[in-house]
């Protein structure tokens, strides 16, 4: 009802409006208080351009953070505008202010509900986006419904949006969790790469504890990962890291056990060791665990630093120890990126380098500090260099540190001094060198440097005070000049602690301090009190009065701590009746030997957080941080990840071959794919326009995998379709591919008639997977046939009905000095030239050295046309490679002789075709077959009567026999006893028709009609032999 009263703006813009806008703009510059009224007026105007202008200015206000909420009623009216830009800006406004103006926001809801049904997927998606972004609790049921509907939308883009909406609804009303989990469960099953990242994000936000939802989708996610968009990859990888830690056993166990064993061997009895051995079960990695590691590895090459980091952390947390180091190179590469990226990566390297020095040691120089680095980058690099220091490289590192100490950035110089201190404690060989170096720094002019040195020296001396009394003396002298309180306090503590080593100097220092006590910092005062107490105990004769003086000063100090400390010390060291037993132990309390401080990295315990996380960066648990669990001792049931395989995956190679080899040499202009999947009753038809060539296909044809299929076919057109095909490949029962190619020269005859239909000079080519030749061509073909007005003879080159497995020897390994070659007729139309026969050659290197530059050399007869394979740069020992080439046999069975050359040798080889290999299978209707047969009578016909063996009398084996002998296609036949086959010669394209008519008592008449009578009779001879054979 509300919406009915909304006026929709009229379309149409005039120049008058334009000038009006500029006028308005100038007006509102001068009178800003009335600005919003102007905007309201513009929004209520009928002119779209004015409205748009108004909305643009409103968005400007929002961007500046100014309040524009009073315009809400005027803006919301335009939500149903036809102008898409205006509409989008209204959306922006709505999302910003709907929370504040809930009642008015409801006005817009029905528009979105309508838009959710729009045929345009972009509009559906954006309606859902806005609807779910309006944070108004009343509409929660509507949102829920919309999300559920969108989750089963046809368009993956809309489904992706629904995954985002799940999180929005959850943050608005966590009570909906159970329902939302249902939607998440459904979307997790989605096979689109577009949806995967977003739904995993929703999973992480809504129900990260429901790890059971992942089981069935685990393998799919691993396999899709490479094709998911980069942001989704990050989310999926971190989720899978968590998942893997709950589902697999530790791959680290083995080396851990190994280490223990080798240690134990030294000092424990053999008996125990053997018992241990029996306990150890050999570790085998779960194949799913391996799958994850394998599929994430290529992502280390991603340009997205977040992806690289997430793979690195995955390897760190999941991979066996010896495999982790493959991430090093990539992490070091990230250091070339922006400053902020460097910061995060260096932090993670700092944590990693504590545990695994070896990983980064070869890249030590990449962590050298440059004077232009930001301070936090410098200190992180310093941290890493310190972590990497060991006996071997310490001298290099210290030399580098010497440069840093002199840096103009004093904060950094101070950091370096601390780093030197850490190196000195960690590597005992250099302790003295470092200490001497630090003492030299004590005469530095910069106070922060000196102060830091004092603090570090104090720590070092504490670790080994034995022979360093001269350093202490030197430091005592410094006390006159140093003003940094921390350093002064450190010196005082040192002198107090080792006062017996410097008996002459210590009382003097105390005297000086007593003089300046009142003006010192608190921390210095405390240490002065300490020093006084310790001297009183060791040398009370000289210092009794001084101590009392200091204690009196301390008693009236302003600071509580100092007063407390003074009182405590006085009771402790000056025995009186009240002090009781404690003062007897004063010496043992104050001068107890103190453990040396351990200088360790600030990143020491950061590894409690998962690497790459925010929590790791800030070193506290961020809200929403999901703990990485420890490896389970016993692996949970592996079978939960098994997915019922609907159909065997035998389909790939055939589809691929079909696609590869049925690309005619002129680029198809139209492409059609339909796929049928028994479990998901969806037909995915579609079309695209583009162009293509075959060169690249051939290379890809070597490895038949879905992702290759995707890459090689997807050039330009049918992107969406093939993308789906690749995603769904394993579930399809049949995939039919057909395409229309433009004019092919040698089929002019057919051409003419097709063009009558005004199909833009098209010939129709249909390809079917060869294992189901009886499936008829897809709807497109029938559609087009239905269009035809007359009996048009259409002859289509189809996939071979049978591809002989048999391969022939081309080059024996003995004659080829290790290079062995075999060839096979693929019976596919040749990619390079239509009149060539395609031959597949597999080359194997059986020698023990690598063969280089394998190529084709001279050929004979001289006119022989060969499309050579590209030169193979090298072939490793025991490696083999399959290449394909095209040979123009010119419709004769004369062998093609040529030379197969390597870098060193040349071998003459020859390929001898059987006559049946010189044809290409063709499909045609029975009608056409008869028509063609009628044209090929007399001289062009040859026939023979034979006796066929019993098993060849039924159609299946007979068809197979004939197809094995010659590359011909089966022509559907109306009679049971007559079998027809059609083909054409590869070179001249002459039609070949074979008829096998079964008579009584296993007699059969074979008739062959073709212009090429020589080939006809040769084929007849072969067929006779084959069919008569058992």
């Amino acid at each position, binding site marked *: 009802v509300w919406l009915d009263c909304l006026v929709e703006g009229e*379309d149409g813009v005039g120049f008058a409006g334009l000038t009006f806008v500029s006028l308005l703009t100038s007006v509102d510059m001068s009178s800003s208080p009335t600005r919003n009224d102007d905007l309201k007026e513009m929004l209520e105007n009928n002119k779209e351009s004015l409205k748009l202008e108004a909305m643009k200015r409103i968005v400007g206000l929002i961007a500046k953070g100014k309040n524009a909420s009073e315009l809400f009623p005027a803006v919301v009216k335009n939500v149903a505008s036809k102008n898409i830009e205006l509409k989008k800006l209204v959306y922006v406004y709505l999302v910003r202010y709907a929370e504040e103006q809930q009642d008015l926001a409801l006005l817009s809801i029905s528009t979105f509900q309508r838009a959710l049904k729009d045929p345009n997927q972009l509009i559906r998606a954006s309606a859902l986006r806005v609807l779910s972004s309006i944070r108004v609790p009343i509409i929660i049921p509507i949102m829920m419904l919309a999300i559920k509907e969108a989750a089963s939308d046809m368009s993956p883009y809309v489904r992706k949006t629904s995954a985002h909406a799940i999180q929005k609804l959850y943050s608005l009303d966590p009570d909906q969790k159970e329902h939302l989990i249902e939607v998440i469960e459904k979307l997790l099953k989605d096979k689109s790469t577009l949806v995967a990242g977003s739904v995993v994000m929703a999973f992480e936000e809504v129900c990260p504890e429901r790890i059971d939802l992942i089981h069935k989708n685990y393998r799919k996610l691993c396999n899709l990962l490479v094709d998911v968009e980069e942001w989704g990859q990050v989310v999926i990888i971190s989720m899978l890291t968590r998942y893997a830690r709950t589902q697999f056993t530790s791959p680290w166990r083995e080396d851990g056990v190994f280490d223990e064993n080798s240690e134990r061997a030294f000092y424990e009895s053999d008996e125990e060791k053997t018992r241990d051995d029996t306990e150890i079960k050999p570790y085998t990695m779960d194949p799913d665990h391996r799958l994850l590691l394998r599929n994430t590895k290529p992502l280390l090459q991603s340009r997205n630093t977040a992806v690289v980091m997430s793979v690195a952390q995955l390897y760190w947390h999941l991979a066996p120890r010896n495999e982790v180091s493959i991430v090093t190179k990539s992490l070091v590469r990230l250091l070339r990126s922006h400053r902020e990226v460097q910061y995060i990566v260096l932090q993670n390297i700092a944590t990693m380098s504590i545990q695994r020095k070896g990983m980064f040691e070869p890249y030590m120089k990449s962590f050298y500090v440059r004077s232009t680095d930001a301070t936090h980058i410098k200190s992180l690099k310093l941290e890493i260099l310190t972590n990497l220091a060991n006996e071997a490289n310490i001298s290099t590192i210290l030399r580098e540190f010497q440069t840093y100490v002199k840096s103009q950035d004093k904060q950094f110089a101070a950091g370096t001094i601390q780093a030197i201190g850490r190196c000195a404690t960690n590597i005992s060989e250099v302790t003295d060198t470092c200490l001497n170096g630090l003492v030299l720094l004590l005469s530095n002019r910069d106070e922060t440097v000196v102060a830091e040195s004092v603090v570090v020296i104090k720590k070092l001396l504490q670790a080994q005070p034995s022979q360093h009394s001269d350093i202490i003396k030197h430091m005592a002298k410094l006390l006159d000049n140093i003003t940094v309180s921390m350093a002064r306090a450190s010196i005082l503590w040192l002198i107090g602690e080792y006062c017996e080593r410097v008996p002459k100097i210590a009382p003097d220092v105390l005297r000086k301090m007593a003089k300046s006590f009142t003006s010192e910092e608190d921390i210095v005062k405390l240490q002065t009190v300490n020093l006084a107490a310790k001297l009183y105990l060791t040398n009370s004769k000289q210092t009794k009065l001084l101590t009392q003086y200091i204690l009196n000063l301390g008693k009236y100090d302003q600071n509580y701590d100092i007063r407390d400390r003074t009182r405590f010390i006085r009771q402790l060291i000056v025995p009186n009746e009240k002090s009781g037993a404690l003062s007897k132990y004063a010496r043992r309390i104050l001068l107890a030997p103190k453990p040396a401080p351990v200088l360790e990295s600030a990143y020491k315990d950061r590894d409690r957080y998962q690497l790459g*996380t925010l929590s790791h960066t800030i070193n506290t648990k961020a809200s929403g941080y999901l703990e990485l669990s420890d490896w389970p001792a016993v692996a949970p049931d592996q079978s939960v990840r098994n997915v019922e395989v609907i159909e065997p995956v035998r389909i790939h190679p055939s589809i691929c071959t079909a696609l590869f080899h049925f690309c005619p040499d002129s680029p198809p202009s139209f492409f059609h794919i339909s796929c049928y999947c028994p479990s998901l009753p969806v037909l995915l038809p579609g079309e695209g326009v583009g*162009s293509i060539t075959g060169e690249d296909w051939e290379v890809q044809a070597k*490895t038949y995998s879905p992702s290759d299929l995707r890459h090689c076919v997807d050039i330009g057109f049918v992107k969406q379709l093939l993308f789906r095909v690749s995603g769904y490949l394993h579930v399809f029962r049949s995939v039919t591919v057909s395409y229309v190619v433009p004019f092919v020269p040698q089929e002019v005859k057919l051409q003419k008639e097709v063009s009558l239909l005004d199909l833009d000079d098209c010939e129709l080519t249909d390809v079917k997977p060869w294992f189901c030749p009886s499936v008829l061509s897809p709807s497109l073909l029938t559609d087009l046939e239905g269009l035809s007005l007359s009996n048009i003879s259409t002859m289509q080159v189809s996939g071979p009905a049978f591809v002989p497995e048999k391969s022939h020897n081309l080059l024996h390994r003995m004659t080829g000095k290790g290079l062995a070659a075999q060839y096979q007729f693929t019976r596919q139309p040749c990619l390079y030239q239509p009149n060539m026969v395609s031959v597949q050659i597999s080359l194997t290197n059986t020698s023990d050295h690598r063969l280089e530059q394998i190529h084709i050399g001279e050929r004979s007869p001289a006119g022989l046309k060969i499309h050579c394979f590209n030169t193979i740069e090298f072939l490793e020992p025991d490696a083999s490679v399959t290449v394909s080439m095209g040979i123009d046999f010119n419709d004769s069975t004369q062998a093609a002789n040529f030379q197969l050359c390597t870098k060193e040798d040349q071998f003459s080889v020859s390929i001898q075709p059987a006559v049946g290999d010189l044809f290409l299978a063709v499909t045609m209707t029975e009608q056409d077959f008869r028509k063609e047969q009628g044209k090929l009578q007399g001289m062009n016909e040859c026939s023979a009567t034979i006796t066929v063996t019993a098993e060849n009398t039924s159609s299946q084996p007979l068809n197979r026999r004939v197809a094995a002998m010659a590359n011909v296609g089966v022509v559907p036949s109306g009679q049971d006893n007559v079998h027809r086959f059609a083909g054409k010669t590869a070179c001249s394209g002459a039609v070949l028709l074979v008829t096998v008519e079964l008579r009584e008592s296993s007699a059969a008449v074979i008739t062959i009609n073709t212009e090429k009578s020589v080939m006809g009779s040769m084929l007849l001879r072969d067929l006779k032999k084959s069919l008569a054979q058992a």
Partner: protein
Amino acid sequence: MIHSLFLVNSSGDIFLEKHWKSVVSRSVCDYFFEAQERASEPENVPPVIPTPHHYLISVLRHRIYFVAVIQSEVPPLFVIEFLHRVVDTFQDYFGVCTEAAIKDNVVVVYELLEEMLDNGFPLATESNILKELIKPPTILRTVVNTITGSTNVGEQLPTGQLSVVPWRRTGVKYTNNEAYFDVVEEIDAIIDKSGSTITAEIQGVIDACVKLTGMPDLTLSFMNPRLLDDVSFHPCVRFKRWEAERILSFIPPDGNFRLLSYHVSSQNLVAIPVYVKHNITFREGSSQGRFELTLGPKQTMGKGVEAVLVNSQLPRGVLNTNLNPSQGTYTFDPVTKLLTWDVGKINPQKLPSLKGSMSLQAGASKPDENPTINIQFKIQQSALSGLKVNRLDMYGEKYKPFKGIKYMTKAGKFQVRT
């Protein structure tokens, strides 16, 4: 994930804000301003700042801080990478990414941000897709739009969004089909006092500008692919093919993009193309210091060293300099103490030098450290590592494209310690 975004200029004003979830008050930026005040240099502001209820993750580019507000755990690199992608997109759209450009195009910026994130999670970040959704503003288009009332906003879902080549838009047409590749190598080095190399490495990129009609499928092969030690690819590159054959095979995005970044293995000794002779001394007690600098070419493979620029941060004690360049111009900023010498081209016959004296603060003690010298230079038509493109082939389209490959070597972080 990303809750809100604030854009802060160098004077500490928030000039744009965008919220993807509930509105976060801009007072959250006070924590950022605090950190900004504490930092001595703009670069020193920590990228991640925790506050009581939020976390601020910021990047600094073009003297603008892009401050993202985060509420819960998220990989920080995810946010940082995204923010950089936002800056790249702005640069792509407006040519420059300055405060003025953003303010002028605030509506387009808003529309872009709206498309790039949904509920804080990246939605469309590929420039080719965004350009189909929101057309970049040009003067011509603005005029046309005001007259015809058409908009910059696309009505259809970009085809790329659903395809496996999301980086390329469909229906690309050019009258001149051309593909240019720039092989740019940067040499990072630290040279010590005595002129010996402490560390040197070569990082390279191949930037492409491809303007080809239709859906071309390109392959690029190298004469010496083994040089490349560590590579990262644009998503368009087929990884398997690279693994197997060391050939780059890809369907390129339309327009400019970075095809490949690589690192040349450190085993190969890096030839340092320039050398520096320096003599910078401060005498104790005197208020004068000597400054002498001579540059010369070294191992440049016969190519000239151009666009040489030297800068150095002199110690704080230096009041002024009185130097005499044999070529080019030099400036010294007495406030920041930054010495800049624009040398230009190095003539091997007559080496450029900069000589003279520095006046020091009277009575101040001599600085402990000599300044570091940063050098920038360019060498045209040569890639320092020796990387050579063998050939570029195109499949999938009929026309003959115009192909071009350019090589260049630049100084990256090239520092000489004195």
